[in-house]
């Protein structure tokens, strides 16, 4: 199965990057789930958590404030001024 390559980036460093099977984020319009093969997307994130499911089934949660989410060609980037793993 195809995976997503995800990176969570804050202003001064790369917080986390790696492969994932699913990503759930909170945009200004509501929660959105990204699976492999998602169409290109550019969304503004609302204050909240980004939940990433790894291929092994583990889950990672990151806090992202004031940022946006871009999806293109199975590459997901969560970009926020301030971000950190919870």
């Amino acid at each position, binding site marked *: 199965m195809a995976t997503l390559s995800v990176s969570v980036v804050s202003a001064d460093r790369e917080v986390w990057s790696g492969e994932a099977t699913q990503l759930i984020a909170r945009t200004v319009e509501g929660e959105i789930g990204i699976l492999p093969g998602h169409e290109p997307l*550019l969304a503004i994130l609302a204050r909240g958590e980004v939940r990433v499911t790894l291929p092994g089934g583990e889950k990672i949660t990151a806090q992202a404030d004031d940022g946006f989410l871009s999806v293109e060609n199975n590459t997901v980037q969560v970009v926020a001024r301030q971000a950190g793993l919870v």
Partner: protein
Amino acid sequence: MGAQLRVYRQKIKSAQTTKKITRAMELISASRIQKAQARVAASTPYSRAITRAVSAVATYSNVDHVLTTEPEKIERAAVVIFTSDRGLAGAFSSQVLREAEELSTLLRSQGKDVVYFLVGRKANAYFGFRHRAFERVWTGGTDQPQFDTAKEIGDALLEAFLRNSDDGGVDEIHVVYNRFVSMVTQVPEVVRLLPLEVVEGVEEPGAKDVLPLYEFEPDVETVLDALLPVYIESRLFNAMLQSAASEHASRQKAMKSASDNADKLITDYTRLANNARQSEITQQISEIVGGADALSSAK
């Protein structure tokens, strides 16, 4: 003769003290370059991600947005100059200021007014000494820039950009800073920040490529509104980090050559001092011999 020797000794002393200071500054800068470079590298993923997103919006949508469209007539341009807070860094600040002057001349020849936003005490002093007006100045912390400062500058610039040009708003924003190329080379660079010009690293979509159809949430305008301030901040922050790394590198270089010069001075003055001491001794001997001769012949 003794007086001359004392003067040389004083000069050697003073060169030695200066050398201690310059050597210490050299070592401090050398240790800070690594850190500054690491910060530039760490902030790269962020600016790359934002640049990609901005270019995606700019390339794959045809929205008219204030920030991307070229105004018909540009009346006023803002120039942001990144200098350092402290001197003793060789041509660091002066080469940026020179570049900014050239840019201003060019802009004025195109019939535009130029307003300045300054970063660093050196730019402040340069403009203050010449009694020239500037819009705002940020000083302190140029060697260890904080993201909050970049945000502050970005907010001020955006505010000026969105104001009408009748109320003193600007239609164009340029940035002048030292780009860190390597430990030995730092190049002053001029970048037009707004309206968006060339977004670096964008692959032009080929004629045959099918453009990915981006979905925007909530909609294109809102995304652009949110994205562009962030883009400006990240570019400014990157410029500040580059400038900080360049500052350390150029200070290290300047202080190294200062220490080397002090070394050379010390060698030269030591030779002269030895010479003076030798001739003093020679003179004393000949005086003694002369005196003894005179005494013995008087008998």
